[in-house]
């Protein structure tokens, strides 16, 4: 059923214009890295309360999206959804591209990036960060093996694809657990943080796949069967509902406990509430669901592309909200008392990102974009024509 895989020609002025754009982002990221590295982190908006800022939002968003980008491949290999088989190569390659972009930002934002190698020499296996070093590098290896078997040895696809599936689940759980396992922070600590990260990764990963597939197919004049649009739309609806469900469960659980009344009230009405209501709820859940379930918009390519863009805004908002709300909520070593000090105990933290942080984060997007653009030019990652079998009817919730 699958038409032949081909690389795109990538010789047009438009193609090189886009390559140049992402290359410029990469260069901006490099400049920002050099600036922060030479000057020190005081040129960022970070402070003693908010120590993980915008670069972490970019990095974690890319990592979470990377795991989700493997979704189309997993649908074909693990869940036997044959029509998505034609996107397996693209899906696994995109996962690697996004992961590399995210990891670079994460490393570049270390206080001492020159010592990054120490994470591989002196390891503390009780640290969730150490686990993540293995999870990220392991995921890249699994995606490579998967890609290699798809291109060279189809007989190993089932094994490599099946190994990559738990790999991505564990990876995203690990990323979510960086926050979820921290007992000292009321906003972070939750057993459901890991699963929520998985749901967010599924929705944003599917969204980025759809956006890139649709725009690449449009730009290269390839056909995209409408049934595939419906299939991915339905997937996106399901994953968005999963995000909604998990967020409701977490809010319900915490709001049920008197110990969390204050913190939950602040999360929902405090300084980062706009990210929660505007970014997560409106842009990430309500608007995509309204578009995707609409009779006309939900069946149009542009409608699903718009919903996908909104789902990605929702994902970034989710990560930003977890990070920033979690860090700015006041520390109080004396619960039940009002505390104050010259070190801002008991006070809400504040954070305004600097331009250099934004540039550093965009540098990661630039790297991921460059890898994707060069990948589709030099490897046969995309089908000539995205087809759907006649008898196939995409699952409809």
């Amino acid at each position: 059923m699958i038409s032949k895989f081909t690389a795109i020609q990538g010789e047009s002025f438009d193609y090189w214009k886009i390559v140049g754009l992402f290359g410029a982002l990469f260069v901006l990221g490099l400049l920002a890295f050099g600036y922060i590295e030479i000057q020190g982190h005081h040129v960022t908006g970070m402070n003693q309360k908010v120590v993980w800022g915008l670069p972490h939002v970019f990095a974690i968003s890319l990592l979470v999206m990377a795991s989700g980008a493997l979704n189309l491949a997993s649908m074909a290999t693990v869940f036997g959804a044959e029509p998505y088989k034609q996107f397996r190569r693209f899906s696994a390659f995109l996962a690697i591209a996004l992961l590399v972009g995210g990891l670079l930002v994460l490393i570049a934002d270390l206080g001492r990036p020159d010592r990054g190698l120490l994470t591989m020499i002196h390891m503390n296996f009780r640290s969730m960060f150490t686990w993540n070093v293995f999870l990220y590098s392991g995921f890249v290896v699994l995606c490579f093996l998967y890609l290699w078997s798809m291109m060279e040895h189809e007989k190993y696809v089932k094994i490599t694809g099946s190994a990559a599936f738990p790999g991505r689940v564990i990876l995203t759980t690990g990323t979510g657990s960086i926050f979820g396992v921290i007992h000292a922070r009321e906003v972070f600590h939750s057993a459901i943080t890991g699963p929520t990260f998985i749901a967010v990764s599924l929705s944003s990963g599917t969204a980025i796949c759809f956006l890139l597939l649709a725009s690449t197919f449009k730009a290269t004049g390839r056909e995209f069967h409408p049934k595939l649009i419906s299939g991915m739309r339905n997937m996106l609806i399901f994953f968005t509902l999963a995000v909604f469900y998990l967020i409701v469960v977490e809010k319900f659980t915490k709001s049920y406990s008197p110990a969390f009344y204050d913190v939950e009230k602040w999360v929902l009405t405090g300084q980062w509430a706009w990210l929660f209501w505007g970014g997560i709820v409106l842009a990430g859940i309500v608007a995509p669901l309204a578009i995707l379930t609409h009779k006309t918009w939900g069946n149009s390519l542009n409608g699903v592309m718009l919903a996908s863009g909104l789902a990605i805004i929702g994902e970034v908002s989710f990560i930003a909200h977890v990070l920033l709300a979690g860090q700015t909520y006041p520390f109080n070593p004396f619960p039940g008392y009002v505390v104050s000090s010259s070190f801002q105990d008991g006070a809400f933290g504040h954070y305004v990102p600097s331009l250099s942080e934004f540039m550093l984060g965009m540098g990661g997007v630039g790297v991921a974009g460059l890898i994707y653009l060069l990948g589709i030019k030099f490897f046969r990652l995309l089908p000539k024509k995205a087809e759907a079998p006649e008898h196939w009817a995409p699952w409809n919730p």
Partner: protein
Amino acid sequence: MTMDRRTALGVGGAVAAGTLLAPGIHLIAAPQRTEAKAGRRWAMLIDVTKCTEECTGCSDACAKENNIPQIEDKDRQIQYIRKLKIEDKAGKKPPISLPVLCNHCEHPPCEHVCPTSATFIRKDGLVLVDKHRCIGCRYCMIACPYKARSLVYQENETPVAELNGETPIRAAGVVEKCSFCVHLIDKGELPACVQSCNQSHGGAMMFGDLNDPNSEIAKKVAEVKSLTLRADLGLKPHVHYQGL
């Protein structure tokens, strides 16, 4: 030189596999850590009834002893020990002022989360930071429930003549915190904050080996009612407060 796709994939896979395996290979032997006498357990007892809000003797002495730069930017100041004011929400009790510092926990979350083991526990219970191994990931700052850690946001520009040659200057980008003045303890002296408090201020601080039943602090902790901060977290902190 051109590379066909098969080779490119192979090289990419090999690099990725190397990245995966590298963490398990100890390329460079870990530096020897100073091993203190096992069996000791350094601890502090602070009598908050002797603390006044105006007194900053402990934090001033700490800053001087440990070469802590005085940064104007309040958001990025480094504080090893700070005075905290606590007030009863109902306003029925008078406010209390007390010093808060690293609690040198028996189960420190900072040590638990540190990916490179830059934060480690010495045999005598001191929780220390290896400034050469810290990569500045700041996860320890996220995990510490006492807000006892600071990131060095910029280079220390204090003139050399004003520096204490016995304590290291931390480079920008690493995380640091109170060490209970390990350099003084190892010489048989008391931490700078305790010395200052007892010599010219309220005399609220007591320091010693909690495992030695004949030590003053062990006797006092056994005798008076004292509390540790956030005992609910099960970290077994070793800064005790009397009079809270």
